[in-house]
């Protein structure tokens, strides 16, 4: 069974090719370069996938997390085939916002979405996605164009809103996006047309929990087994792992799993200290195996502050590739601390993977704070100069320009 790799990077000569199921059992992160090994010769051409770009450091294929500032902190983006674990903040406000940004980015780029939740119906989650941010002069053009059904010659103006432009004559094929990360307006909802035009699969655990298992019970809880089967089914049916010869898939599957580990999934690690301590870790391991052998990227939000057995948290961290923790100030004593008065919480980048490399991109500054302004979610470096709080500040804005403000 020799499946052909179906994706690649842009026109660059070095890049990573994600291959799955080929004769020589190449899985993912294979770098295609001038000294390509023998298994590379079967990949005839590189096709660029919408919404991806190669990493500058090791040619890894990256997708955006939906927040350009977070992309920069993670070394350019989220690598295809890896897991991004978000440790939820206490009331799950900002982590669900990050979750929505991730899904919205998938819709804008034309990726296929797989949304799994035990709390909300995925259809409802998709209705709540933030709208992409348009510059004001583009917005006027969009209003005219939507009525006049203009053709692609006005492409030049629609750098951000290219999707809106295609609205009247909805195309099915992937179109390469001209930007890697997009900005979203948290106060507005994603237009209905874009949601309907996108391809998505939903897994709502309360609906699926009654069907029977066709796998013998191992130590995984029922919910995790069903979710793994669902994901594996989608990956196989839609050809994301390259094993289905009928399906030539040139797209990324974005998997979003919400509140993994919470009692709603049937797992009791948040309720008791001696719960089923292997269910979640086994799930993560098999999930990562699925991701490594397919063109997909996954974001998981997990209420780690509720997990009673701290050993599980460290095991979960070791089993994930990228781990980002959110700590919001709501209800804590930091809310009134003058140091943090401009911010809503802290972001901790706990782990970044070293993929195909001994070293990795890590920012020197470890104190990062975020705030949700009226429209934008920004991440800034935290400075401890309380006496100069209104004077000099150095921060990176959400379009990652470094700004000194005096």
């Amino acid at each position, binding site marked *: 069974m020799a499946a052909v790799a179906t994706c690649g990077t842009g026109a660059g000569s070095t890049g990573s090719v994600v291959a799955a199921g080929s004769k020589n059992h190449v899985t993912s992160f294979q770098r295609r370069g001038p000294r390509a090994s023998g298994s590379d010769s079967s990949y005839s051409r590189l096709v660029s996938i919408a919404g991806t770009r190669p990493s500058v450091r090791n040619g890894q294929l990256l997708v955006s997390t939906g927040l350009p500032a977070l992309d920069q902190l993670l070394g350019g983006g989220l690598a295809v085939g890896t897991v991004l674990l978000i440790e939820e903040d206490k009331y799950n406000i900002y982590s669900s916002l990050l979750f929505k940004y991730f899904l919205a980015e998938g819709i804008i780029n034309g990726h296929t979405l797989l949304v799994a939740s035990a709390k909300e119906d995925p259809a409802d989650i998709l209705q709540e996605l933030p709208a992409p941010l348009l510059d004001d002069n583009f917005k006027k053009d969009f209003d005219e164009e939507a009525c006049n059904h203009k053709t692609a010659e006005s492409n030049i103006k629609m750098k951000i809103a290219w999707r809106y432009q295609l609205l009247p004559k909805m195309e099915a094929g992937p179109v390469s996006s001209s930007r890697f990360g997009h900005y979203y307006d948290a106060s507005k909802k994603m237009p209905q047309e874009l949601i309907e035009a996108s391809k998505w699969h939903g897994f709502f655990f309360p609906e699926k929990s009654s069907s029977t298992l066709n796998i013998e019970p191992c130590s995984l809880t029922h919910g995790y087994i069903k979710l793994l089967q669902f994901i594996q089914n989608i990956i196989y049916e839609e050809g994301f792992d390259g094993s289905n010869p009928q399906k030539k898939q040139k797209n990324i599957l974005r998997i979003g799993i919400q509140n993994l580990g919470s009692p709603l999934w049937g797992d009791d690690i948040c309720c008791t200290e001696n719960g089923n301590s*292997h269910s979640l870790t086994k799930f993560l391991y098999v999930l990562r195996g699925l991701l490594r052998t397919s063109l997909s990227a996954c974001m998981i939000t997990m209420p780690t502050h509720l997990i009673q057995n701290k050993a599980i948290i460290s095991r979960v961290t*070791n089993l994930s590739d990228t781990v980002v923790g959110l700590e919001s100030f709501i209800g804590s004593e930091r809310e009134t601390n003058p140091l943090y008065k401009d911010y809503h919480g802290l972001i901790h980048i706990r782990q970044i993977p070293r993929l195909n*490399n001994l070293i990795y991109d890590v920012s020197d500054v470890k104190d990062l704070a975020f705030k949700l302004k009226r429209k934008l979610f920004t991440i800034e470096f935290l400075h401890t100069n309380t006496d100069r709080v209104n004077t000099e500040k150095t921060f990176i804005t959400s379009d990652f320009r470094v700004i000194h403000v005096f």
Partner: protein
Amino acid sequence: MFPELNNLLNTTPDRAEQGKLTLLCDANTDGSFLVHHFLSFYLKANCKVCFVALIQSFSHYNIVGQKLGVSLTVARECGQLVFLEGLKSSVDVFFRAQAEPHPLQFLREANAENLQPLYEFVREALKPVDDGEAAWRCPVLLVDDLSVLLSLGMGAVAVLDFIHYCRATVCWERKGNIVALVHDSGDTEDEENNILLNGLSHQSHLILRAEGLATGFCRDVHGQLRILWRTPSQPTTQRDQSLTYQYKIQDKSVSFFAKGMSPAVL
């Protein structure tokens, strides 16, 4: 293989010792650079290597190996390297019932008792070939990493038994080496991991412990490496020899220096 680490350990690929268990552990930092070092070291030393890679994919090790001067694809094709790719095999094992026992069979079972299928796999992989071909120097078992087995449902005792069986076969019977990585969870109360770590520390001949700096993150010094030589079988009145160095990881090598003597500081 990092030449500076070879100097610190006082070995070269030509003079590799035999019959040793080396324990790699990391605390608060990523110790996988040690795994890459030993993998390329033993491949260059012309040993037959069985690599149980549970945490990353084959191409990850291959690409880093190429930076260090070995090609894993060539080694695998000519039979020097037997590679068990945990992530990929786990998908096969989990979703499809296998006809014959698979080394990662415990993923399917609710209460797996022991790691016998994995041990059988290792024993089969490192079987000496006696048909007169180019004989490899000595068999080596490399495991990355053992803490993952705890996360997958095995008890610490089962993992210790597995290492014990492998030691009996690989180290004693076939005069080979074992190198295994265990994460040290530090102050999180992972008791099973502590049992595993302590048990292995008592059996090892050489312990390499990579720690993050106590003062936190530093751009020029990535961590501290503690090297401990032990003689587990003989009760000895003299102290085990121990050395501590700090290191910085670069693109293709790791540089080691005495504590406080980082080139960035001097």
